């Protein structure tokens, strides 16, 4: 791990307090990370795509509500792309371009929020089950195993059916079904960190369990959490699309998945209205791809062994 290696800054800062040393070291490793990321072409491509979609999602706040209201639009349904309707119109005459832009908001929101929840559960369970070796750790580890094996989509469907359709519920469903992979990963890393001498030293100095986990284990597993988060967002966005397509999303919110659901139900396939289905799908693919590219770039930087293999 890059963060634990002593640097020149350490030596220069020897006269300063311990906190300053830590701060300087973290800043140095952040700078190093940014520099390596800038040189990673696919990572930068991913970041660019992502920033464009975030800009679109923000711009979508300025779309007047009337242009997305089925009772107030005047265009014909199923119009193919033209100068006036760059991405055509849907089954009730709304602009697909505006729908897709609006959909970016919910898709990104759910993607980020569900991932935060999943990362929070996964990291906590992983660290705690790796730190406590006795009953607590064993039970949590078993629990992770159980959730890891249960097929994802059936579980999500059952949960979403029980909870009902709403924005918060879909975030909860994705969050509580996608944490076990992270927990596994973080647990393994925690086990290896716990075996290092400086943790023994901290224990010998009388550090409590919470202090050890919070101050020593967490900062060390954080880079891994970060790499995993970007990859997890892509999975969350795909899940949101799938669940919304199956009719389990918030019925009032427009997301890429719900546009696909509506298009499918309105017979866009038999109408040959390819623009109606292609546009939201391409947005999903690009966004998910962006997160995958960024995640892989971070992984490459954190684990240089891969490059030489």
């Amino acid at each position, binding site marked *: 791990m890059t963060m634990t290696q002593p640097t020149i800054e350490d030596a220069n800062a020897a006269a300063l307090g311990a906190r300053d040393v830590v701060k300087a070291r973290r800043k140095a490793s952040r700078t190093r990370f940014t520099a390596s990321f800038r040189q990673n072409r696919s990572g930068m491509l991913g970041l660019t795509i992502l920033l464009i979609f975030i800009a679109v999602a923000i711009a979508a706040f300025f779309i007047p509500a009337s242009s997305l209201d089925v009772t107030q639009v005047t265009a014909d349904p199923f119009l193919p792309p033209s100068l006036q309707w760059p991405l055509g119109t849907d089954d009730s005459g709304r602009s697909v371009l505006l729908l897709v832009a609006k959909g970016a908001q919910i898709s990104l929101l759910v993607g980020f929020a569900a991932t935060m929840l999943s990362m929070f559960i996964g990291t906590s369970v992983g660290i705690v089950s790796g730190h406590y070796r006795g009953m607590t750790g064993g039970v949590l580890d078993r629990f992770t195993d159980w959730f890891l094996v249960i097929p994802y989509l*059936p579980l999500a469907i*059952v949960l979403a059916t029980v909870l009902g359709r709403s924005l918060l519920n879909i975030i909860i469903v994705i969050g509580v079904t996608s944490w076990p992979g992270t927990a596994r990963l973080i647990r393994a890393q925690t086990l290896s960190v716990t075996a290092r001498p400086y943790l023994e030293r901290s224990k010998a100095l009388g550090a409590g369990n919470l202090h050890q986990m919070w101050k020593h284990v967490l900062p060390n597993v954080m880079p891994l959490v970060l790499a995993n988060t970007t990859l997890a967002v*892509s999975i969350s966005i795909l899940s949101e699309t799938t669940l919304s397509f199956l009719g389990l999303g918030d019925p009032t919110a427009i997301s890429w998945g719900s546009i696909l659901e509506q298009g499918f139900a309105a017979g866009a396939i038999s109408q040959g209205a390819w623009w109606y289905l292609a546009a939201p799908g391409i947005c999903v693919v690009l966004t998910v791809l962006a997160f995958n590219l960024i995640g892989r770039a971070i992984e490459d930087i954190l684990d240089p062994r891969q490059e030489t293999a």
Partner: protein
Amino acid sequence: MALLTETPARTPSAAAGGWANPSVRYAVKRTGAAISTFIFVLIFNFFLFRILPGDPVALYTRGRNVDPESIRALEAKLHRPIGQQFLEYARNPFTGNGPSVKYNQSVWEVIAPALWPTLLLVGTATLIATIIGVWLGIRSGWNRGERFDVISSNTTLVLYSMPEFWFGMIMLIVFAVGIGPIPGMFPTGGLSDPGVDTSTPAGWLNVAWHLFLPVTTLAVIYLAEYSLIMRASIIEERGQDYVQTARAKGLMDKMVRRQHAVPNALLPTMTLVFLNLGFVVGGAITIEYVFSIHGLGSLTVDALQGPDVPLLQALFLLFSGAVIFANLVADLLYGYFDPRVRT
């Protein structure tokens, strides 16, 4: 990927007797873990629908008009002591929640005819995806960084980022409905034309014709996953000492790949085929829905609209059971072929 794989901790074997045999201990341990997972699923599947706030009767009847008599019957059933209900359920987990509400048949009668279409679809797609995916993975991993690898890796990464049902809809619109100069060539859904006897060779052809698009869609999506794993696995093996030794002996590149690297790299990929059944199940659900194939997937979508809770519970149990079983098979096979994991 080295960061992502957990190395099994070596524990000194202290026990005696048959228990000292690592293979036996490994098999018993894995089987025990699978059974414990299934028991967890059983309990989860029962209580999930009952511990939530609100009346379970409301959940069982949501979205439907139910006559007062049935509601009273349901209330009598669902308002009994929870222990009593659980015992009845545990005795027969599949039908213990009552018959399917929508079909008015026992859950098993609804599920049985839907098994074959799903097995046919998923089985064919997995087989094709495994063969092509492994081949792609070997070829691009062995010649890492060359043009073939760059094209193949980028394509699989894009496929990997794609919702499978969306790809299916695009396939339908292009090849079944027709777009621009491309005429509609394939059927838009179903497993066979109405009135076709599927037990004759002509009937099989008809089924194959209908399955072409959905199987292609699923296979393309699955093979992205398999080739990514196979590629990572072959890259890992390529850097090992024994491959170096084989090269130093003067073996041809092809021999080193076929006789040394591939057999070792295949193992994790093959077990992954089993481990991935959960992911495969997810694909089947949406693809069957899009292509109107009346299998377990369409049944699941059908059951969640309404919802038909007893049917949904039975399907969840069936999917989970199948995946748990496949995982156990994968674990045991891995233990058999690679003794290193039997620690």
